[in-house]
């Protein structure tokens, strides 16, 4: 069964460092998303991406964040200068060929900023 894969599963980084979280969405999907979940809290929307551009983003997704689909298969989230409060589980999700249908989530990358 097709699935969304995320790497790495766990990343530890020093405050101020740049991190890139990687995702391989399901191959025929057109809609891509990043969400995060701080430990013990709700899942928060970061950004949606369609047709090679951002279609919607939250107030969390400030200038420190960027997304890219560099090669037609990977979908990356970059955090330029990590802060302690960026520590969270980051989930990538992809949706099918129609907007606002079910989303398929990856297993997440646990980011720990020290």
């Amino acid at each position, binding site marked *: 069964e097709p699935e969304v894969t995320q790497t790495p599963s766990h990343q530890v980084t020093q405050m101020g460092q740049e991190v890139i979280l990687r995702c391989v969405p399901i191959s025929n999907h057109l809609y891509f998303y990043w969400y995060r979940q701080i430990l013990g809290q709700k899942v928060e*929307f970061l950004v*949606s991406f369609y047709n090679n551009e951002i279609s*919607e983003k*939250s107030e969390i997704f400030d200038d420190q964040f960027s997304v890219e689909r560099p090669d037609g298969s990977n979908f990356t989230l970059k955090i330029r200068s990590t802060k302690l409060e960026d520590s969270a589980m980051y*989930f990538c999700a992809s949706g099918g060929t129609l907007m606002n249908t*079910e989303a398929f*989530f990856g*297993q*997440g990358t646990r980011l720990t900023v020290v």
Partner: protein
Amino acid sequence: SQQGEEDPQALSIQEGENATMNCSYKTSINNLQWYRQNSGRGLVHLILIRSNEREKHSGRLRVTLDTSKKSSSLLITASRAADTASYFCATVPSGAQKLVFGQGTRLTINP
């Protein structure tokens, strides 16, 4: 309360009993979805109900949607120990391209 708030926050029942979780939201929606999350793992989509639908079934799951009350419920019948997980409702607000999640209900099924 915020968009997509579930209650109860935690529910513990015996195996075989039915579990009901509720969700309330504030804005108009395109659809409402329920997801399940096992501890520390990804979210698994369970069921989607569109704003013009009132009830939907999938296996042991039954979802209702009342747009006049901006609320939804998820019923899991004949619960099993393997149903132990956190359950989240998520709305797609009208005109938006995102899921807005609630805080979730932690469901524990006791054998």
